[in-house]
């Protein structure tokens, strides 16, 4: 009854075209943002920040990037890990090789490098489609793995191939504590989520969706496939690259190519499939599901076992974690093939009709 748009009349185009046309949505998002910015830093402890919230935010950003490419433009990519790696290593090189380089500039330049690499590996998408494209982007993954393992220049000649950063700061403010790191990531994610949301609502987003739904028809009505596909690759890789740089700089601190392995690419793809293809909100759902659930299971199972007086070994916990996690993925995909975001919007529809939903 509360969630109803009756009586909310739109008298201007602006009002009609805003991101959240319903007043209740705007209030809800506003409250959520206020809670994330003010409430969470007051409530959460260090573990929650470092182990859950920061990885969640960064991977959500990467998922948004991938969602633009896969969900909106319909180009399946398995090279996400590679583009993250490019972002991370490029940002690292900008930071250590150029004296006085501000961190945020290094991260954004890392994104720019990822864009270049992304567009380069996106070129085959002009000729090949679907699963074949996935295989082509897989090449990006293997190539980048190889490059960052073998070419010493990228790792500043570090003997072990592992690189690390420290003394991070943003506009002169040091980013050391978990709260600062969290707020920094949150800021970046909010900005990029807003950009992404607006992009997909603009003409360029419509071009992407037209290409996704039927590229021949899109070309017939005057959309240039080259332009549409490559911009999707560019925007997507930029965000993924920035996420990669954040993952290295803020979350890990020190990393090796294994941090951006093929597993990461699959993980991100699962995120958007479970969260919802073609939905910005879905990227957040998917990231939460993939990041939080394994950790939650890992901690809840021993606690559950001790309730029944059983001592569960860590090996059993991790095996059970895999099984339950896999089963849940299958369950969600059967119940709602369009992802968690679809469940969310069905829920909203029902709320509008409440108390007489059909």
């Amino acid at each position, binding site marked *: 009854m509360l969630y109803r748009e009756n009586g909310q009349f739109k008298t201007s185009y602006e009002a009609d075209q805003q991101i959240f046309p319903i007043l209740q949505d705007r209030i*809800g998002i506003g409250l*959520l943002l206020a809670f994330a910015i003010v409430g969470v830093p007051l409530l*959460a*402890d*260090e*573990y*929650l920040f*470092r*182990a*859950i*919230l920061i*990885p*969640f935010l960064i991977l959500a950003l990467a998922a948004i990037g991938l969602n633009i490419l896969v969900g909106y433009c319909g180009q399946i990519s398995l090279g996400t890990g590679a583009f993250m790696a490019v972002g991370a290593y490029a940002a690292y090189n900008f930071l*250590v090789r150029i004296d006085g380089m501000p961190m945020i500039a290094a991260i954004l330049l890392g994104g720019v490098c990822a864009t270049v690499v992304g567009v380069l590996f996106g070129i085959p998408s002009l000729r090949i489609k679907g699963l074949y494209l996935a295989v082509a982007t897989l090449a990006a993954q293997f190539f980048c*793995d190889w490059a960052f*393992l073998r070419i010493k220049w990228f790792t*500043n000649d570090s*003997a*072990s*191939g*592992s690189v*690390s950063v*420290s*003394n991070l700061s943003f506009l002169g403010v040091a980013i*050391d504590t978990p709260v600062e790191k969290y707020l920094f990531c949150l800021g970046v994610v909010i900005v990029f989520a807003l950009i992404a949301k607006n992009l997909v609502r603009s003409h360029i987003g419509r071009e992407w969706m037209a290409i996704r739904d039927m590229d021949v028809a899109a070309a017939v009505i005057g959309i240039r496939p080259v332009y549409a596909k490559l911009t999707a690759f560019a925007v997507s890789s930029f965000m993924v690259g920035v996420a990669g740089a954040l993952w290295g700089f803020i*979350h*890990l*601190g*020190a*990393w*090796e190519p*294994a*941090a951006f*392995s093929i597993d990461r690419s699959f993980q991100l793809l699962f995120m958007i499939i479970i969260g919802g293809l073609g939905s910005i*909100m879905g990227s*957040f*759902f998917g990231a*939460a*599901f993939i990041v*939080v*659930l394994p*950790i*939650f299971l*890992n*901690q*809840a199972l021993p*606690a559950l076992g001790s309730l029944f007086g059983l001592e569960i*070994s*860590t*090996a059993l*916990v*991790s*095996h059970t974690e895999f099984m339950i996690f896999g089963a849940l993925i299958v369950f969600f995909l059967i119940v709602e093939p369009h992802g*968690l975001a679809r469940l*969310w919007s069905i829920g909203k529809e029902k709320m509008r009709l409440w108390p007489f939903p059909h």
Partner: protein
Amino acid sequence: MKFTTLALCATLAAAAAGSAFAQAKEQFFPVLSYRSGAYAPNGIPFANGYVDYLKLTNARGGINGVKVIWEECETGYATDRGVECYERLKGKNGGATVFHTLSTGITFALTEKVPTDKIPLITAGYGRSESTDGMVFKWNFPLTGTYWDAADIILQHIAKKEGGWDKLRGKKIAHIFHDSPYGKEPIPLLQERQKMHGFDLTLIPVTHPGVEQKAAWLQIRQLRPDYVLLWGWGVMNSTALKEAVATGYPREKMYGVWWAGAEPDVKDVGDGAKGYNALTLQHGAEPNSAIVKEVLDKVHAKGQGTGPKEEVGEVLYMRGLKAAMLSVEGVRRAQERYGKGKVMTGEQARWGYENLALDQKKLDALGFAGVLRPISTSCADHRGDVWARIHTWDGKKWNFSSDWYQSDQTIIKPMIKSAADKYAAEKKLARRDVSDCQT
């Protein structure tokens, strides 16, 4: 978004439930282990040894009366999970005493985190070689040996077999390594030695997890190296040995690092691995040592053993015991300074690890007679003396096949210094002042 908050609340609740047991008078040892994944065959015996020694410590009456408690967290050898485990355990039960990562990748990530959390990080026989320099790496302790030492000792042994360093000129040595920081660590030393003695060094990387090595061994078949160094872990080791059998490369010419010389590596290969050599980190398999008997007697006989009884005393089990012994003895040493029978913080324990003074008498009393040699550390040297032998698999068990070696510090010391200085410069860290050694 509701889903997110819900999940967060649930996790919060779980975290809160976990930390409700904080008690005084208990020394908390977090255990980062991996009992699943590609590296489990080697991770399990190490974790069993580590936990068994902690159990034994309690059976012996704790550390001067302070009971030890521990909690395991599964990392699966993955860096991000390792970081999550570290964050989960570091503040529990009054704070973690010390972390062992048993993974070079996790070590690199935690090296950046431990100084702010003030928790020491022991990497006994692995980790970053330059962290030997305690004046730069205040919180890292690569006790008893690093990969540079390991590579140096294997080359010493080869040189001795050939009849002198000058005989190595023109010899072909292949380094087959796990393509990660772990396998890459020894390369600078190998290259340094290559410059000095003029042997041919071929680097052959094997990608994680190491089950696909056909290409590497094809290279070996073409190259016919005089010696092969094996820097593998987990399934990579047994796969390498099987490939060596298939290629017909003599196992006698293969030398593994101390992480590639345990029972899980050779057992599957059985007779095929006969003659294969590996370095030992002082001890080999020690089923007859006093400490093993005591573990069997006080832990396993009471039905509290962590793993199968038959594996007690195997190479990696012993390494777990040893790692736990170093953790516990560091705390005991710290208690001498900060108060006997008190719970030590990570910061206080760090002093203990920096001032370890385990002479032979103390080691014998702990049951490590014939297993370990004296270990002492200082502010500048966070590693202590490196002693190692070669042991050889005879198809059923490991037998020592060489004398004791020590790594050549005239080569390694300058390398450590320059690598540590490079790290300090990159991080804009100042070397610790001598006055800092007293804290």
